[in-house]
């Protein structure tokens, strides 16, 4: 039986491990939890004990540090020769013509409309909805309850939190965080962060 190593940390590691284990009973699904040091670097030593020829991997780490840690880990795992695949939950509703990149995660109950693109390393947690013809660029993170309208574009490394409703055709720049539960009706410049702990959006210039 081939192995599927779910590698990473955070509660998303548990979620992804459980999702893979239930979706693929034909595989031996193992959870590989990585430690981080004080500077948040991963301890990758354990990867030397795994053989890429005996299975494939999935990198699971949450949205911390602007979704950068997950992509760093993805790159490290690929450098070591591991094959990565996307995960599409058996109870996700994914229409025809949808492109899904490596190491993307589409959880159960998520809906992705016709001809949309979900780029590599992006995570749609259970219940997230993406309309038709939308483009979710690499390493995004959508929480349950997110709705992205038809034809909208979401920039790389962006995080959309529960209650974010992105109007059709909208462009969300890279490195954005839409954390205020509201309808977003205007284009959002790159680096803009709507964090519920703050009174005003955090803007980024330069």
């Amino acid at each position: 039986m081939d192995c599927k190593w779910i590698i990473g940390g955070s509660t998303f590691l548990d979620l992804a491990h459980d999702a893979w284990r239930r979706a693929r009973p034909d595989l031996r699904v193992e959870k590989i939890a990585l430690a981080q040091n004080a500077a948040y670097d991963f301890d990758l030593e354990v990867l030397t004990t795994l053989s890429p020829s005996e299975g494939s991997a999935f990198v699971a780490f949450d949205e911390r540090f602007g979704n950068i840690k997950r992509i760093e880990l993805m790159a490290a795992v690929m450098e070591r020769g591991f094959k990565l695949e996307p995960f599409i939950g058996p109870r996700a509703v994914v229409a025809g013509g949808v492109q899904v990149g490596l190491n993307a995660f589409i959880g159960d109950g998520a809906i992705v409309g016709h001809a949309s693109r979900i780029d590599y390393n992006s995570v749609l947690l259970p219940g997230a909805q993406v309309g038709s013809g939308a483009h979710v660029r690499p390493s995004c993170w959508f929480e349950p309850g997110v709705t992205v309208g038809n034809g909208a574009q979401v920039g790389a490394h962006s995080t959309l939190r529960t209650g974010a409703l992105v109007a059709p055709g909208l462009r969300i720049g890279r490195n954005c965080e839409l954390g205020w539960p509201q309808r977003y009706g205007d284009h959002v410049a790159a680096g803009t962060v709507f964090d519920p702990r703050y009174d005003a959006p955090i803007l980024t210039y330069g």
Partner: protein
Amino acid sequence: MHPRYYLDAEIFEREQRKIFRKVWLFAGLKTLVAKHNAFLTRTIAGLPVVIQNFDGELRAFENVCLHRSALIQSEPVGRRPLACPYHAWRYGKDGEVTNIPDCERTYGFSDAEKCGLRLRQFALRAVGNLLFVHLDENPLPLEEQFSPAFLTSLESSSNAYDTEVMVTTWRGRYNWKLAYENLRDANHPRFVHSQTLARIVNFRPGVNTAEFEESAQALAPEALRQEMRRFSYGGRDTAIENMQRFSWHDLVERWGDEDVYYNWLAFPNLHIASANGGHSFTIEHHMPIAPGVTDMEVYRFTARKKQPFAHSHAVLLAEMHGSKLVTGEDVGIMERVQAALHPDAPLPTQGAYESTNRLVERWYTLLMESGHGL
């Protein structure tokens, strides 16, 4: 100080008139307006101000169109000509009206009338990367408000700022003076920030006996302007033992080479700090809104990057959240102080280590309660 100075609307208005419209005030960063037609807008001492780049020359104007009083620029930072969106009146670098569409036919203005139309211009000075404006038509020399050593330190450090800047605004329910009293109080971090900043930096209050004794003596009215200079100071503050290192530290041109906490206070509206020995900086720009309301515009940026790196935005956001945590503790305590104030509240009991706050109080009360100005 007496509670009325933190509560009274008439005193607040007097402060705006006697302090904020009579001194140099921080207004923004030069790097935000580096290109032709780039602009930034702020409300400073109640006035809408625009700083606009005209082919490399920076000018500051009242951001109100002379036609129907619309804001000319509406975004906090942007890039477009100085033209009103309402009826497309356009302005030049001296504030003059350079174009009014269909002027002769629609408005009937004579050439003389057009020539008389000019935006109100404010004095503007750059100190390194920091922009200061003065709202009075006869500004005091910047060098009178700030000492040469302080200006040199501000210039040197701010020239090290990177151009990628994160900015947000927090609204606090406290009087602006509480922020500066708190910033001058080196005794509070070990109590207010015991789980955050004080674990990194060991602030210890010092006692300046001569200053303490001086604060009990009367200040001569003619010394008001000169005295204010003492309230702005900064640079090296306290050593940081075992400063935490992050990989991104190697990716920026650190300002200085000491593991110290840097602290600059430019009275009355600017605080700059670096809690990691010059690898990154935070700016707190205080904007009084009402006696019990202060907006704090918070900037976060690293020292100049050696080259762009992919996770710089994530670094700034993590730093911003760090600011939110630490400054949030300050805001929390200041809001508690403000909430407890009432006209008959007991007067503060200040000790010897608070001599600078006592000097400011002496200066402030003389300025506010006499007919003398700066």
